[in-house]
């Protein structure tokens, strides 16, 4: 992935600033989390100029250029900060007709000028300064959109990233882009440039920016679903070992945003989304099993899990089964938590979430036993971050299928594991544990005996003295209904 390479390159050069880099990253992460809580999480990408990359001398963005007789050159910053100078962009924006002039050059006869103008607009679109907002750039958008159907990859890429940076800015901007035909243009573009993976990545990025914004479910997403983009996105889902994961990652995130909006997941499934995503997940599971965990692979696994997880609700599981017929999917869903537990526990949790959505059917529960995958799940029970709660849900789903399933669960060692989870600090974990235990004991009295043998009685009795009503009531219920013969209760007169 050339973008990640660029970053690493930079980090290497600034060896002594590594701590500072990490500190900044942590701070940045906190900002991102705050932004997400406000539903304001947006990012923009800046395409580094190829020349600058080769030189290795430039980190910053502004380029020298002469655009026309009326515009002075922008200033080139030589300091190491990544922020473009306010003056440079402000200067440009405040010039009268500056955007108009850029646009003139954009459509002009000189290819080099076109490229430079596009570059300039791209940098402006990435500008963090509030004076440079997308509405001011809107004169350029019809042209940018038109050029998406052009033939020059480098130019097209710039146009794409410019548009992509503008998408999150406001609903007005998105409406405007929609009206100007951005979706058919993207469709065309990905078709024309399907062999150029850099452009494909750019299309994916732009589309993801468009559909991940707020308030897009009414018009934008239906338009995307109807546009014929889906099959093209799906065809990208085979990672190219040379180019890297960039394009696949972007397309996968697009599919995730489409699926989680729940506008018409039936259509997504009908076009083969579930099939492609699950088979890519299996491929990634195989890679993980072989130990070849490529850098950034989690960026791909994440959206695929989410897409599959949400698409599983698009219809009864029985109807979806033909698309889910590879049982290695279950193995992959159990492998990801094991592989990523320490590095990305949230990914482990989402993997188990997909299993929860799958185990609403006896077919998949049977398969889990057949493939002997349940012990791997039970081993996840000690872990917090919501992992154990999700695992308990899966186990509850399995137990709910019936007596034989409960017996198999007990054989897999669930009862001692529950004795431990019943002592955990998180009340929700204890509640779910009591529910699962209740199902086990209700299905067969020998499981109740087994539980007593595991010294489970004192644990339940202890819970009776908790000040949390939910678990107190359940513990009492279990003691009274299933464990009564084992525990002589002395009632005082």
């Amino acid at each position, binding site marked *: 992935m050339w973008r990640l390479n660029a*970053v690493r390159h930079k980090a290497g050069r600034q060896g002594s600033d590594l701590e500072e880099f990490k500190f900044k990253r942590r701070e940045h992460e906190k900002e991102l989390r705050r932004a*997400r809580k406000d539903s304001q999480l947006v*990012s923009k990408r800046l395409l580094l100029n190829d020349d600058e990359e080769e030189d290795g001398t430039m980190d910053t963005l502004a380029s020298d250029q002469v655009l026309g007789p009326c515009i002075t050159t922008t200033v080139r910053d030589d300091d190491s900060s990544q922020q473009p100078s306010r003056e440079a962009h402000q200067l440009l924006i405040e010039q009268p007709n500056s955007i108009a002039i850029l646009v003139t050059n954009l459509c002009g006869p000189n290819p080099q000028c076109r490229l430079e103008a596009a570059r300039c607009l791209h940098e402006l679109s990435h500008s963090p300064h509030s004076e440079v907002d997308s509405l001011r750039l809107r004169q350029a958008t019809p042209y940018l959109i038109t050029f998406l159907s052009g033939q020059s990859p480098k130019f097209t890429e710039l146009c794409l990233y410019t548009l992509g940076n503008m998408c999150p800015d406001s609903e007005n901007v998105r409406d405007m882009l929609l009206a100007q035909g951005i979706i058919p243009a993207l469709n065309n573009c990905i078709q024309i440039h399907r062999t150029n993976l850099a452009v494909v990545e750019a299309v994916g990025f732009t589309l993801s920016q468009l559909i991940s914004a707020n308030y897009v479910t009414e018009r934008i997403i239906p338009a995307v679903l109807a546009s014929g983009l889906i099959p093209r996105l799906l065809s990208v889902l085979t990672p190219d070992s040379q180019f890297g994961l960039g394009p696949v990652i972007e397309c996968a995130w697009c599919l995730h945003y489409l699926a989680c909006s729940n506008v018409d997941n039936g259509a997504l499934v009908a076009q083969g989304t579930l099939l492609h995503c699950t088979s890519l997940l299996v491929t990634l599971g195989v890679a993980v099993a072989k130990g070849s965990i490529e850098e950034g692979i989690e960026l791909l696994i994440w959206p695929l899990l989410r897409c599959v997880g949400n698409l599983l609700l698009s219809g009864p599981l029985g109807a979806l089964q033909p698309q889910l017929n590879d049982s290695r999917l279950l193995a992959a869903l159990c492998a990801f938590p094991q592989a990523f537990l320490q590095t990305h526990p949230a990914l482990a949790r989402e993997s188990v979430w997909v299993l929860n959505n799958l185990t609403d059917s006896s077919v998949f529960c049977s398969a889990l036993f057949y493939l002997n995958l349940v012990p791997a799940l039970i081993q996840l029970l000690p872990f917090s*971050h919501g992992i154990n709660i999700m695992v308990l849900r899966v186990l509850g789903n399995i137990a709910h299928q019936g007596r034989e399933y409960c017996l198999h669960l007990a054989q897999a060692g669930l009862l001692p594991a529950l004795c431990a989870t019943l002592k955990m600090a998180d009340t929700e974990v204890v509640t779910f544990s009591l529910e699962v235990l209740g199902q086990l004991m209700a299905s067969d009295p020998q499981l109740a005996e087994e539980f007593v043998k595991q010294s489970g009685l004192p644990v339940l009795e202890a819970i009776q003295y908790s000040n949390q009503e939910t678990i107190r009531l359940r513990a009492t219920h279990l003691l009274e209904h299933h464990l009564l013969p084992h525990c002589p209760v002395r009632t005082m007169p």
Partner: protein
Amino acid sequence: MLQPGLIQLLTASDLADLRIDAIPKLQVGFRPGSFFSSFRSQDGEAKLTFIPQQILLNKDHELFEDGDIHRHLYLQNLSTCPAHDSPTARQCEFRCYISGCSQVFSTVEDYEHHYNTLHRHVCSSCQRSLPSARLLDIHIQEWHDSLFSILAERQDMYQCLVEGCGSKFRTREQRKDHVIKIHKYPSDFMFDKVKRIKNIKIAKNNMLQKGTSMEVSMSVSEPEGVCEVLSDQPEEEEYMEINHSLEPGILDPASNPINTVELSTDHDTAPILSVTIQPTTNQQRPQHNRERHSYRVPRTVCFGQGSVQGFRGHGRRI
């Protein structure tokens, strides 16, 4: 990292055939629904409410937060970093669920040690924890049984503490002498005025939990209000308000004026080998004055139908 079974499943080449529809479905003998419905009708109200449920998550769901942050760090070219700062999976902590005891432990063993030391064989009347079921019975008999003091006037009621001995004595002092002379107990054993040293040792063992302070005062001080916790807390359903505090003073059940409110007449001795468990309030001292005389009949009666008297130890006699 990955278990061999999983690796094999995923990497074996002839498994392209492992289709879900080729896997035999586990057959069920009878429908689970019938069981649950019968339980619900018994109670009049469902206590166990779990049913399988698929979960749809929209893009802003909190479960998606970490993944989104990772994605955006990547977009902003900040995702590579030699040393990871991202959250790692934590093992869940364990908590003691006895109401009022809010201690948390990092391993099951620590929790179980805590529980077995402090919550087993607890007298429901005065919250004292005794080391064994037998001593608990003796304690209850001698301190909380109204009949005991009456009978003790006329017959030998004080049992020897040593199991299997069977001897009984008319007074506590006689028992104490017996135990010292015949059973070779040290004379400073915790019969009457409980010595600090002994208590500290036991309490120190009890307190080997994470994060608890070990301030043990060496002076013989007024005992804390052992029983006041009961009258103060509003949670009637729990007869056992076992609260934990490891503040100074908890170790001393000696010279316990609280005993004045108990029903036995002999008040200058302390219960045997007991550890007093204090309420986790910040106002220990002012409280006990207030509550000293608000204690009432031991709540060994009427705490709901059919509730388990687990801490009497009878359940474990099997």
